């Protein structure tokens, strides 16, 4: 009896193993907590923005300089909002005093080391009021300035008809803006730094004798690229239009999509040292208000001295920076942005980059292309299934090769096993090393192909791939089957419509290979479970990442692997909890 019980008791070895089983995840969790704590100290991600709700004017909390101006877009009666343009200066901002000579001098003082700021002295019309125009060569639309500003100002005779002497400043301002200047975009400011900032971004600033406020004239015209087909997301069918580097062009592209009054565009200024304009776009009545509030809150926590590209914003806004998966999608296509907006998502456009951000992202989006909707549903569904298969192959093919060859050759058909093993006979490495050599080689080739000049890039890739593959087989370093596997994997990973999702798959492929090398098929299954667990726990702006595959409502499955006919797609995806759930009746 006792013997039987003792036989069941675990030994010391087991106890030690059980402690190990406890210790490893504990250690990992501790490390993650520490990571997060460190990141929390360094970033402002967790802070609650203290500005007003609803995309208004006020700025982010601490430095008080990220002035969120909403120019032109929302204000009918424009004025520089809360122009605390002093930027980093803590002392009260320099103001204009109204005496032209002093004002010009102080403006020259602050712009003393900017020799590209030009000055044009002039006299306004009949009363011969002295005035000065500041502008930057190259940024300002000179022709427009000559015709619409200089000419009317100098020729202003009729406007001053009833006036005997120089009118008082308020009246003068009225006359100049309302009767003389032929410019649509006008703002006023009395701060020198704010006006300088405008001048440096392409506006012209008009100083008039006796007026303590200066007039900022929107005449900017930078060099822009015309609208071209996006390079990273080419489609066979669909609009050949991509975003470019100018924010106003990009918002215009969205507006041009169709006549609609519900699209909201909130403007924000991001960057502490170098300010940039950013637009948050969504459709009122579709997008969930809570989602928008959360996005705005996160936008307010952005605290960085310069936002170089929308990738910066993506990384500063995303939920989980330790996840290999994108929680915000970047795209160059306006139609993709519009489709997302109509599903109840939101988009962020940044000045200076053609990449717009779409959020929140769910897993299905990584494998969808706008073409699925433009083509008929058969072809759309087929292509989607193909992409899923391709993604699976690109994730698991080398891992399966490793596990079958090194652990269970008995599980593949006998003839195939024999032919693989006989072709592998001269190979001196274990399968993992063999697969790693080839995978790393192909990744290097791919990366090199990107950097090469356009005409020789593809040629180089083909030659490199062919020669390396052929030579490696002949030299007996790898087996020919592996070359097939690796080539298939590489091609499959190109079929993922989102380039960055393809990179994620590449990264995970290596992880899968190591799992397979240690635990064979069992390792692959557990890797799949681990990946699923991660995706299940991952959220993008509160929306579960896997909500397409494991939906709360079955109707969301209609647009996942199979793209059902459009006339049956009556509801928007419920996972986003849109305000208006019905797409059409």
């Amino acid at each position, binding site marked *: 009896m006792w013997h039987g019980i003792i036989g*069941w008791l675990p030994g010391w070895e087991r106890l030690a193993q059980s402690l190990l*089983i406890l210790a*490893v*995840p504990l250690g990992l969790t501790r490390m993650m907590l520490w990571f997060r704590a460190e990141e929390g100290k360094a970033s402002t991600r967790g802070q609650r923005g203290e500005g007003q709700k609803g995309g208004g004017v006020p700025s982010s909390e601490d430095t008080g300089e990220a002035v969120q101006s909403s120019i032109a877009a929302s204000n009918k009666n424009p004025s520089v909002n809360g122009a605390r343009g002093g930027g980093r200066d803590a002392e009260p901002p320099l103001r204009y005093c109204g005496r032209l000579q002093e004002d010009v001098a102080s403006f020259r003082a602050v712009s003393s080391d900017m020799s590209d700021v030009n000055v044009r002295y002039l006299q306004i019309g009949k009363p011969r009021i002295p005035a000065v125009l500041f502008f930057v060569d190259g940024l300002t639309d000179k022709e427009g300035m000559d015709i619409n500003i200089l000419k009317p100002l100098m020729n202003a005779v009729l406007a001053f008809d009833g006036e005997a002497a120089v009118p008082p400043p308020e009246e003068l301002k009225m006359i100049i803006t309302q009767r003389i200047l032929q410019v649509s975009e006008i703002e006023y400011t009395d701060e020198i730094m704010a006006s300088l900032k405008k001048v440096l971004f392409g506006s012209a600033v008009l100083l008039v004798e006796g007026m303590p406020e200066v007039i900022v004239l929107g005449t900017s015209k930078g060099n822009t690229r015309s609208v071209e087909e996006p390079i990273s997301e080419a489609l066979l069918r669909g609009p050949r239009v991509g975003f470019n580097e100018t924010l106003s062009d990009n918002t215009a592209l969205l507006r041009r999509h169709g006549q609609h009054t519900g699209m909201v565009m909130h403007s924000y200024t991001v960057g502490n040292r170098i300010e940039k304009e950013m637009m948050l776009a969504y459709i009122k009545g579709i997008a969930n208000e809570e989602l928008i509030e959360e996005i705005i809150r996160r936008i307010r926590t952005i605290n960085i001295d310069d936002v170089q590209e929308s990738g910066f914003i993506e990384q500063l806004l995303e939920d989980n920076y330790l996840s290999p998966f994108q929680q915000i999608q970047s795209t160059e296509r306006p139609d993709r942005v519009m489709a997302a907006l109509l599903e109840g998502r939101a988009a962020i456009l940044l000045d200076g980059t053609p990449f717009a951000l779409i959020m929140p992202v769910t897993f299905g989006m990584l494998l969808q292309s706008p073409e699925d909707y433009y083509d008929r549903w058969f072809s759309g569904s087929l292509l989607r299934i193909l992409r899923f298969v391709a993604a699976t192959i690109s994730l698991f093919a080398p891992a399966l090769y490793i596990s079958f060859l090194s652990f269970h050759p008995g599980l593949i058909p*006998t003839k195939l096993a024999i032919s693989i093993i006989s072709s592998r006979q001269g190979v001196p490495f274990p399968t993992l090393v063999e697969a790693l050599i080839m995978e790393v080689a192909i990744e290097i080739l791919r990366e090199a192909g990107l950097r090469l000049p356009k005409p020789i890039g593809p040629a180089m890739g083909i030659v490199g791939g062919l020669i390396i593959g052929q030579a490696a087989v002949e030299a007996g370093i790898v087996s020919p089957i592996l070359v097939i596997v690796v080539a298939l994997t590489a091609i499959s990973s190109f079929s993922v419509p989102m380039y960055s999702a393809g990179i994620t798959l590449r990264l995970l492929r290596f992880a899968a290979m190591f799992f397979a090398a240690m*635990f064979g098929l069992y390792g692959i*299954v557990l890797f799949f479970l681990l990946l*699923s667990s991660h995706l*299940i726990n991952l959220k993008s702006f509160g929306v579960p990442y896997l909500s397409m595959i494991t939906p709360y409502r079955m109707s969301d499955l209609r647009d996942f692997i199979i793209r059902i006919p459009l006339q049956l797609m009556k509801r928007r995806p419920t996972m986003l909890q849109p305000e208006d759930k019905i797409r059409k009746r």
Partner: protein
Amino acid sequence: MAGKIPDRITTSQAVFILVNYILVASVFTLPRTAAEKAGTPDIWISVICGGVLSVLPAFLIACMCRKFPGETFFQFAPKMIGKPLALATGTLFCLYFLCYAAFELRSVQEITVFFLLEGTPNWAVAALFIWVALYLCRGGINALSRMCRLITPLAWTIFFGVCLLSLKIFDISNLRPVLGEGLAPVFRGMSVLPLSYTAGEALLFLVAFMDKPKQAGRVAVLGTLITIPFYVTSAVLTIGAFSVEGTVTRTWPFIDLIRSFEVALLFERFESLLLAIWTMQIFSTFCIALYGAALGISQMSNLKLNHCLFAVLPLVYLLTECPPGINSVFAFGHFIGDWAVLMFGGLSLPLLLLSAFRRKKT
């Protein structure tokens, strides 16, 4: 954290969880254990009857739980049977969940080491499994339901697909004579079923998470009934292929069944697919049981759920490695089955009556 229900699941999600919880490793062994007891090919009748019978305790437990919407058994038991008794029952339940999880893990370990990974140390196989399970369980009940939802279509398709292919070696004469020795072997065969069909215990905490607790009874009935075809298929096909004598001599008769035919499709042999899928299926069962144990401990002791999840890991591992050999593993499984009958079959009716009685009094 303890005492607060973090998130909700719908009725259909609850059914998915329950089905995944019931479907376990015993699909592989059920034909053998039942055939050993019964000795006739009639075990498929036992499997059906056992399944239908096991609906009853599950339903009773569901009825009991829905009287306390939003509360798990560990929370409402003190109100019902007093604190000391509730603590004792709760501990027993937690221990049961742990043993159940451990048994499932041990089955995976035995199968994996036997069929897939000869020479890999047992503890490494178990450790990987436990760690991934922990990672999933930290996401709470919603993560579990999503995982079940993800696994289900894969597992069911492959299971029935493989079963269809195995019809190649199916011989109906092995299933004859039906009821050749009367009903007695059928009843004897039913004695091994509790391990496969225990469902009620998951409801003890599952109902608390449902957004419509009124439908708990439906979940119990549907969840149990859906699993019957799996066990019946496994029993019928195995006996049909190997006959009773052949089945009794195999450790994992169902896997042997899948191994014993070759079809000239992509794979030629399908046990790798089946093992992969069934590992996932057992993973979901393991996670649910682990989560149940941790939830019970956390709610009884007012500790954080996450801490409890960590605390149960070494316990599960030790229990997993307790049985010294494969035969003791099956003995362990049998013991758990008996335990389940005693606890959930025996306790459910008195508890239900008690809950009804208490309710009237207040």
